[in-house]
C-alpha cells in the first residue's frame, strides 16, 4: 500500500475522531460554563474583598488527598492540604484564581468568585497530557516546545502486561514502534524497530537509555530455518517495577545528542525515584499463567505404511492425539517486588528488590531473576549541588529457551510422529539401555536428521544461560549561577554471561557426536559512558534561550571471553562436559565480539519567542574507532527543528485548546559495525589460517541518515480530544552492503553503495469521550504506516540482491528498487488461463523456473487501540492490536503436508483427492492425488506459494481489570491497595495464518515472519496485587 492509498485509512480515522467530538460535546457543558464565568469576571474583580477560602481536595473517587499545593495564581501565597485533604488560605486582594496542584494529578484552577468554600476533585494525570517529558540525555522539556515526535508510556501502563521483558508491553502503544516477541519462551529477546529498517548490516534497533545514560542491549545468537536457540537480550534484565515511564524518541532529530548510536531513535527509560517527605513501602505481586493458544492443525486418522516416517497410508484408523497437547504444560510467572522510597528536602532514596521466577509452556524452560536497585539523590551546598547515584544489580538464569527450526527441535518429532505408532512408548522411555555401550541412549523410532525424541531433547540436552549484571551510575548537577548549570555523569554497565549446553550421547548424530557434545561460552559485556555538559537557561523579554554544550566518551568491550563447541567431534569420554574432556582437534576460541570507542562533542540551542515559536538547533561531532585508519573516523552533523504553537498565534474557536506545527531535519551519521573493514585472518581447526576473502575495504564511510519530519498536534475541548499527526522521511545513504558475486574474485565485496528510504505516517488520537465524577473513558489510537524502499543496493553490478536468511522454500531477498522484507519463492507453473501445469509424463505439479515475488513480510500498517474505562474504583483496560497486510511463510505447514500429518492431508484423503484447476498436456485435470500433491507442493523446497499466508491479524492483546481499595475506610495501616486481573494476547479477532506472525523466530534482521516448528503463540492471564504502606 502506498502513502496515497493509505489516505483512505487515515480518512476513516479522522472520521472516527469527528464522531468522538460529537460524543464529547455532550459532556462539555460544565467546562464551557467555567470558561464563561472566567470571561465575565473582569468586570467584578475590583469589588472582590480580601477573604479566607477553605475547602477539601479529593480524588475523583472522593478520597481526600493530603499534600496538595493550593496557591493563588501569580502570587507567592499558598498552603498545602492536611491529612484530611483540607486547606484554608487567606487570599490577597489581587488574587483571582486558585491553583490546585499535586504530583500525578491534573492541575486544576478555580476562579475566585464570592465562594468561601471551594471543594475540588482532582483527576489523575494522563501521561499523554504531561507537560514535561524526558528527552535526550534525560533533559526534561516542555512537551509543547518539541520539534519532533516523542511518545510516552507510564510505568503503570507497562506493568499491566507483566511480561518479563518490559519492551513487549509497548506493542501497539507507540506509533512507529514495531515490536516482535521471540518464540523462544520465557526469557526470550524482543525485536524492536523504530520507523523501519534503515541499515543492512545493523539491526536498526533504537538505543536504550536509563535516566539519560545508554545501556547495552546486545543480542546473542538467533535461530534460523535450520535451528538454534535465541540467546536473549539485555532488556529482560531490567526490573519493570522500577520504571516510572518510558518515552520513545522516534526521530534522529531528537537523538542527535547521542550521536551515531541514537540514529535509530531512543527508548528512554525513567526510573522511579525517592519522593521528598513521603516514605512509602510498596509491595507488588503478580501471578501469571501461560497456555499455548493453538497447535497446528494435525490429523490423527491416517498412519504410516511399511515403517515409513511419513503418515501417508490411505487406510483410515483412529489414533491417539492427546500426546501433542500433553507435551505443552501451563506455564507460570511469579513476579514479586518490594520497594522502599522516601527522603527529606535534602536527600531522597529509593530501594527495590524484585524476584521473578517462571516456567514456560514447554517442560524445563525455566527462568529466574533477582533485581536489586538502589537510588539516592542528595542536595548539597545550598541545594546548588545535587549528587545522584543509581545501582541496578541483576542475576538472571534461563534454562532451555525454546528452539525453532529443523534441528534438535522437540516439535519436529512431536508433530511428524507416524500416527500408527505408539507415542507413549517413547514418551515414558525416552532413553533405553544399550548393552553394547553399557549406557543409556536415545529411544526413537527412526534415525532422521529432522527429528528426535521430544522428551529426550528437553531432558538430555540441557541448556543454561546465566547473566550477572550491574548498571551503576553517578550524576552530579551543579548550579553555577541561576542560569548556568553543569552536569557530569559516569556510568558503568557490566555483564558476565555464560551459555552452556550439554548434549548427551545418543542425541541426533547430525548435530552431536556419539560421545555427546559440549557447547560453552563465557564472556563479558562492558560499557563505560561518561558525559559532561553545561546548560544555560535564560529569558530576555520575549525570548527564552536554552543552550547545551557538552562532550561524551564511551567505550564498549563486548563478548570478550572464551567459546568452545565440540559439535560432532567426539568428546574423549561420553557425557563429561568440561575442557579436559575435549579432544585436541576441537577449537577453543578466545572471543572478542566488539570493541568500540566513541567520542562526541555536541551542542544544542533552543530559542523560544513569546512561547510561540521555538527553534531547536543541534550539532555534534563524532569520533569512532569502527571507521578508524581510513580518514573517515571523525564526522560532523547537524539537526534543526522548529515548532510553532499556532494556538498562541491565531485566535481559534474556543473548542480548540492547543495547536502546534513542527518541522525538523537532521543529518546524522552512523558508523559501521565493529571489525567490518579489517581483513580477518584466524587460525582454524585444520592446521591453517582462514582468511575472509573479501575485498579490502579501503574507504569505508559512515552511513548517513537524513531525516525530515513534519508534524502537527491539536487538542480540543480542554484536552478532551487530541491528535498528533507525523510524517517522516528517513533516507539512509552510504548504506554498507556486502555483496556476493562469484565472478568478482572475492567471496564478498563491501561497499557504501546502498540507499534506503523509509517514509511513514504516525497518527495518534487521544480522547476522553466520557468524563464524569464516577465514570471515565479514555481512549487512544496509534496508527503507523511505514513504506520502505531500497532505492539502490550496489553500484554497477548485476548481482543486485541482499538475502535475509534465504533457505529451503523461503527467499526473503531484496533487489535494488525493492523493499526490505520482499519474499520470493517458487510458484505453481501456470498457463495463460491460470491453470496449473502438470508434468506431461509424471503428472507432478510443476513450479516456475525461478523464484518469483510473493509479497512483503512487513505489514502495510499497524494499529493499536488502547482504552481505559474507570468507574469509581474499578478500572478496565483493553488494547486491541492490528497488523494489516503483509505476508508470512510457514515451513512447518509444508513439512506437515509432506509427511501427511496435516489435517488438510487427511481431509483430502477423505475427499479422494485435492481439487485443482490444472492441465496435463492438453487434458484438464480438476482433481489430483493428495499424496502426489502434498509431497510435491509440501515438504522441503516444494512450491512455496502454497505456504505463503496473509499476515493480517487483529487481537485482543491486553485486558486488565483493576480495583483500588479505599483504605481510608478500612482503617488499616495501609495507604493504598489494588487488585488487578490481567491477560495478554487473549484471542484473535482475525487471523488467517496458521501461526502467530508477530511471534518471531529471530529478533535480528533475518528470518522474519517465518515459522519452522516455532513454539506456538501463548496467551497469559493472572492477577496482580499491589500494596503501599
Amino acid at each position, binding site marked *: 500500500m502506498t502513502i496515497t492509498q493509505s489516505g483512505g485509512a487515515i480518512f476513516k480515522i479522522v472520521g472516527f475522531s469527528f464522531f468522538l467530538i460529537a460524543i464529547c460535546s455532550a459532556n462539555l457543558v460544565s467546562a464551557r460554563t467555567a470558561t464563561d464565568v472566567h470571561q465575565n469576571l473582569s468586570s467584578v474583580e475590583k469589588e472582590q474583598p480580601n477573604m479566607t477560602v477553605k475547602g477539601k481536595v479529593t480524588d475523583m473517587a472522593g478520597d481526600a488527598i493530603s499534600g496538595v499545593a493550593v496557591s493563588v495564581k501569580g502570587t507567592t501565597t499558598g498552603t498545602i492540604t492536611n491529612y484530611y485533604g483540607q486547606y484554608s488560605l487567606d487570599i490577597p486582594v489581587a488574587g483571582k484564581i486558585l491553583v490546585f496542584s499535586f504530583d500525578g494529578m491534573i492541575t486544576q484552577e478555580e476562579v475566585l468568585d464570592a465562594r468561601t468554600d471551594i471543594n475540588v476533585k482532582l483527576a489523575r494525570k494522563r501521561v499523554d497530557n504531561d507537560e514535561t517529558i524526558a528527552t535526550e540525555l534525560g533533559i526534561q522539556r516542555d512537551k509543547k516546545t518539541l520539534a519532533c515526535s516523542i511518545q510516552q508510556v507510564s510505568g503503570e501502563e507497562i506493568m499491566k502486561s507483566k511480561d518479563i521483558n518490559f519492551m513487549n508491553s509497548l506493542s501497539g502503544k507507540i506509533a512507529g514502534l514495531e515490536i516482535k516477541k521471540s518464540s523462544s519462551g520465557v526469557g526470550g529477546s524482543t525485536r524492536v524497530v523504530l520507523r523501519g529498517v534503515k541499515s543492512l548490516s545493523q539491526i536498526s534497533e533504537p538505543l536504550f537509555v536509563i535516566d539519560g545514560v545508554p545501556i547495552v542491549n546486545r543480542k546473542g545468537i538467533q535461530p534460523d530455518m535450520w535451528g538454534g536457540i535465541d540467546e536473549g537480550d539485555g532488556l529482560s534484565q531490567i526490573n519493570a517495577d522500577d520504571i516510572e515511564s518510558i518515552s520513545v524518541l522516534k526521530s534522529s532529530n531528537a537523538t542527535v545528542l547521542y550521536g551515531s548510536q541514537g540514529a535509530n531513535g531512543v527508548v528512554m527509560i525513567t526510573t522511579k525515584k525517592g519522593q521528598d517527605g513521603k516514605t512509602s513501602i510498596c509491595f507488588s505481586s503478580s501471578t501469571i499463567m501461560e497456555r499455548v493458544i493453538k497447535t497446528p492443525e494435525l490429523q490423527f486418522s491416517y498412519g504410516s505404511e511399511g515403517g515409513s*516416517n511419513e503418515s501417508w497410508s490411505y487406510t483410515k484408523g483412529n489414533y491417539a492425539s492427546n500426546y501433542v497437547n500433553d507435551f505443552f504444560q501451563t506455564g507460570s510467572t511469579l513476579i514479586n517486588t518490594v520497594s522502599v522510597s522516601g527522603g527529606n528536602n535534602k536527600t531522597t532514596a529509593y530501594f527495590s528488590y524484585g524476584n521473578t521466577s517462571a516456567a514456560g509452556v514447554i517442560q524445563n524452560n525455566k527462568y529466574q531473576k533477582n533485581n536489586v536497585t538502589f537510588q539516592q539523590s542528595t542536595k548539597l551546598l545550598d541545594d546548588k549541588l545535587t549528587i545522584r547515584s543509581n545501582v541496578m544489580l541483576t542475576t538472571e538464569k534461563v534454562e532451555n529457551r525454546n528452539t525453532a527450526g529443523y534441528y534438535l527441535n522437540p516439535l519436529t518429532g512431536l508433530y511428524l510422529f507416524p500416527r500408527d505408532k505408539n507415542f507413549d512408548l517413547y514418551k515414558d522411555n525416552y532413553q533405553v539401555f544399550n548393552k553394547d555401550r553399557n549406557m543409556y541412549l536415545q529411544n526413537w523410532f527412526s*534415525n532422521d536428521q529432522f527429528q528426535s525424541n521430544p522428551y529426550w531433547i528437553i531432558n538430555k540436552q540441557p541448556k543454561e544461560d546465566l547473566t550477572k549484571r550491574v548498571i551503576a551510575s553517578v550524576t552530579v548537577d551543579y548550579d553555577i549561577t541561576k542560569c548556568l548549570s553543569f552536569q557530569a555523569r559516569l556510568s558503568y554497565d557490566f555483564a558476565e554471561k555464560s551459555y552452556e549446553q550439554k548434549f548427551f550421547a545418543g542425541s541426533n548424530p547430525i548435530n552431536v557426536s556419539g560421545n555427546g557434545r559440549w557447547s560453552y561460552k563465557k564472556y563479558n559485556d562492558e560499557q563505560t559512558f561518561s558525559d559532561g555538559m553545561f546548560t544555560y537557561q535564560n529569558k530576555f523579554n520575549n525570548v527564552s534561550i536554552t543552550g547545551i554544550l557538552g562532550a561524551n*566518551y564511551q567505550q564498549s568491550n563486548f563478548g570478550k571471553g572464551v567459546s568452545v563447541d565440540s559439535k560432532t567431534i567426539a568428546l574423549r569420554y561420553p557425557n563429561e562436559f568440561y575442557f579436559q574432556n575435549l579432544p585436541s582437534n576441537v577449537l577453543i576460541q578466545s572471543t572478542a565480539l566488539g570493541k568500540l570507542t566513541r567520542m562526541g562533542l555536541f551542542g544544542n540551542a533552543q530559542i523560544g519567542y513569546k512561547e510561540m515559536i521555538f527553534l531547536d538547533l543541534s550539532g555534534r561531532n563524532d569520533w569512532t574507532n569502527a571507521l578508524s585508519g581510513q580518514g573517515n573516523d571523525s564526522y560532523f552533523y547537524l539537526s534543526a527543528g522548529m515548532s510553532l504553537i499556532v494556538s498562541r498565534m491565531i485566535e481559534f474557536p474556543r473548542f480548540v485548546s492547543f495547536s502546534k506545527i513542527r518541522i525538523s531535519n537532521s543529518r546524522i551519521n552512523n558508523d559501521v559495525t565493529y571489525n567490518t573493514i*579489517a581483513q580477518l*585472518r584466524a587460525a*582454524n581447526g585444520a592446521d591453517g589460517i582462514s582468511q575472509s*576473502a573479501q575485498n579490502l575495504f579501503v574507504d569505508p564511510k559512515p552511513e548517513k541518515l537524513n531525516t525530515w519530519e513534519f508534524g502537527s498536534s491539536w487538542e480540543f475541548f480542554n484536552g478532551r480530544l487530541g491528535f498528533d499527526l507525523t510524517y517522516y522521511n528517513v533516507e539512509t545513504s552510504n548504506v554498507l552492503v556486502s555483496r556476493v558475486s562469484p565472478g568478482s574474485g572475492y567471496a564478498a565485496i563491501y561497499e557504501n553503495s546502498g540507499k534506503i528510504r523509509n517514509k511513514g505516517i504516525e497518527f495518534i488520537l487521544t480522547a476522553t469521550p466520557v468524563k464524569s465524577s464516577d465514570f471515565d473513558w479514555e481512549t487512544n489510537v496509534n496508527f503507523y504506516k511505514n513504506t520502505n524502499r531500497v532505492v539502490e543496493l550496489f553500484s554497477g553490478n548485476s548481482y543486485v540482491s541482499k538475502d535475509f536468511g534465504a533457505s529451503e522454500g523461503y527467499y526473503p531477498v531484496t533487489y535494488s528498487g525493492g523493499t526490505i522484507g520482499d519474499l520470493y519463492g517458487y510458484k505453481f507453473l501456470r498457463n495463460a488461463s491460470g491453470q496449473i501445469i502438470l508434468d506431461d509424463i509424471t503428472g507432478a505439479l510443476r513450479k516456475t523456473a525461478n523464484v518469483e515475488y510473493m509479497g512483503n513480510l512487513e505489514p502495510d500498517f499497524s494499529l493499536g487501540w488502547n482504552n481505559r474505562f474507570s468507574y469509581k474504583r474499578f478500572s478496565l483496560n483493553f488494547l486491541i492490536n492490528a497488523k494489516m497486510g503483509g505476508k508470512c511463510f510457514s515451513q512447518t505447514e509444508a513439512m506437515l503436508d509432506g509427511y501427511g500429518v496435516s489435517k488438510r492431508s487427511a481431509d483430502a484423503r477423505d475427499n479422494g483427492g485435492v481439487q485443482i484447476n490444472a492441465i496435463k498436456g492438453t487434458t484438464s485435470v480438476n482433481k489430483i492425488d493428495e499424496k502426489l500433491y502434498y509431497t510435491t507442493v509440501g515438504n*522441503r523446497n516444494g512450491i512455496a506459494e502454497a505456504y505463503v499466508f496473509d499476515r493480517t491479524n487483529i487481537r485482543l492483546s491486553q485486558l486488565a481489570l483493576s480495583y483500588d481499595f479505599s483504605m481510608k475506610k478500612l482503617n488499616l495501616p495501609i495507604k493504598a491497595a489494588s487488585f488487578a486481573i490481567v491477560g495478554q494476547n487473549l484471542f484473535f479477532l482475525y487471523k488467517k495464518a496458521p501461526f502467530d506472525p508477530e511471534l518471531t523466530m529471530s529478533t535480528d534482521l533475518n528470518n522474519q515472519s517465518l515459522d519452522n516448528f516455532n513454539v506456538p503463540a501463548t496467551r497469559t492471564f493472572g492477577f496482580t496485587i499491589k500494596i503501599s504502606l
Partner: protein
Amino acid sequence: MKTIAYLFLTIFFLTACSNQFEEANTNPYEITEESLHQDFNHIGAYYPSLLGNIFGHQIEENLVAESFCDYMATPTRFVGGINNTTYYIRWNIYWDRIYGALMAPANQVIKIADGGGYTVFSSWAKLIQIMGMSRLTTYHGPVIYSNYGSSESVVKYDSEPDLYNKFFTQLDEIQAVFAANKTYVGMNKFDASYGGDVTKWQKFVNSLRLRLAIRISKAAPALAKIQGEKAIADPAGLITANSDNMTISLYGGKLYLSVICFEWDDTRMSAGMESFLVGLKDPRIGKYFQPATDDKVYNDHPAFPYKGIRNGASLVAKDDHTAFSKINESFKTITKRNYLAASEVYFDLAEASLRGWIGAGDAKTNYEKGIKASFEDWGAGGVDTYLADETSKPIDYVDPKYDGVINCFKSRSTVTVKWNEADAKELKLEKIITQKWIAGFFNPNEPWADFRRTGYPKIPTVYKNDSNSDWGVIPQGEWIKRMPFVNSERTGNVAGIADATIKLGGPDNIATRLWFAPDKANF
C-alpha cells in the same frame, strides 16, 4: 571533596581520547599480517584451507557425483523420496564452495605470493584453482574462469573448449615454474600432500594434464592427443607409484563419506558396486565395505556377505536398508584422500594407447598395472587370480526387502577382468573404464565424467526417475547429464547465464550433454 573527585573523574574520561583507535577496531584474536610473516606463514598458512575445500560434502558430492556414478546409495527418503538421487534436483551448491572457499581466497594468496616474489607458491595456488575448477566444470559445463575477478557488471562464463585450453596453458606455466625450482624448500612446512617436494608436484601436473586430455579425447581429439602426449613426454614423469599419489589431507577432520555413512546413516554400498564387485569376485570389496549386518539380505551370494542399495531406489522406511553394507570401518580413521592416484594414470595410459597416443605404451600392461596399483593402494591381495579371471561377470541385483521386482535389475554389463588382446577396442575400453571406476572408489568426480563420456561401466539406471520439466526430463533408460547452473547465478547474473546457456549448446537443464561427453562413438 567527593563532588570534585567525581568531576575530575568525568573530565578524565572526557579527555582520555584514545589514540589507539585502529588497534581497538582489530580483533585481538585474529592474526596480524606482521605476525604472520614469522615462519613465512603469511604465504603458506592458507594452503590447508584451499586444498581442504576441493572435495565437497553430502549435498555437494555424495548426493551428486557419488550417487550418479553409482558408488554409494542412500537408504533415506530425502524430501519424500524425490530428490537428486531420483533426478529431481534439490541440492546444487558445489559452486558456492568452489568460488567462496577456494577461488576467492586462492586469488588473495596469489596476490600475496606475486607481491612477495614467491613464484612457486603463486603457481601452487593456481594449480589448486585448476584442481577445483576442473571438477566443477564436470557438473555444469561452462563456468566463470578467465573472467574471474572481473569488475564488469556481467561476468561471462568460459565455454568448455576455452576453459580446457586455459587449463592447459596454465599448466604449461605452472610446470615451467616448478621445473625451474625443483629444489625449492619453501613449501615443505605447508604441504601435507608431498612434503614440499616440487618434483612430485611436477608429476602431478603431468598426470592432471593427462586426466584432462583423456576427458576431452572425444570432444577435441587433436588437442587431447597433443596435450596427452605432452604429459607423457614431460621429463618430470607421471604418477606411476602409489607413493606419488596426489592426496589431500583431511587436516584433522573426518572424511565426509564416513560421517554420512556412520554418523548419519545416510549412505550404503550401491547396488552397482555389489553387482560388479561381487560378480567379478573383487577382493577390494572387503577393503571398501563392511559386510551387511543381516545375513538374510545376501542370500543370493552368501560367499560375499555384502549388499547394496539401488540408486534412485524406491524406498519406504529408512530402516529397510540400514542393515546393508556400510563402508569399511577403516574410513573412520582415514587421514587423507586421493585426488589422483597412480592407478588412474595407468588407466589413462591404457586408454591413450587405444587412441594411439605416442608414448602411451602397451594397453594391456597399463591396464594390469592400473589394477595392481589399485590393489596395492588398498592393501588387497589376490591380484593375479583376479587378473586371470575371464569368466566372472557382474551379477544381477535383487532387493531382498521388497517384492523381488522393485529396485531389482539385470546387469547390463557382461564385462570380465582378464585382458584379451583379440577384443575389439570398444570392449577393451569398457574393461579399462570399468576397472578405472572400481579403482577410483570414493573419488567420484572423474568416474562420473568417464561414465558420461564413454558410457562405461554399464551401471544400472535409477529405479525411480522423478525428473520432470522443472529441471529437465531424463528419458527412461538414460542417465543424468549435468547439474543446472546454480540459482544464485540464474537470478543474480541473468545476462551471464544467458550467454553461458548459448555456450552450453542446449537448455540449462539436467538432460543437456556437456561438451566433453558428446553423443558419438568412442572411437
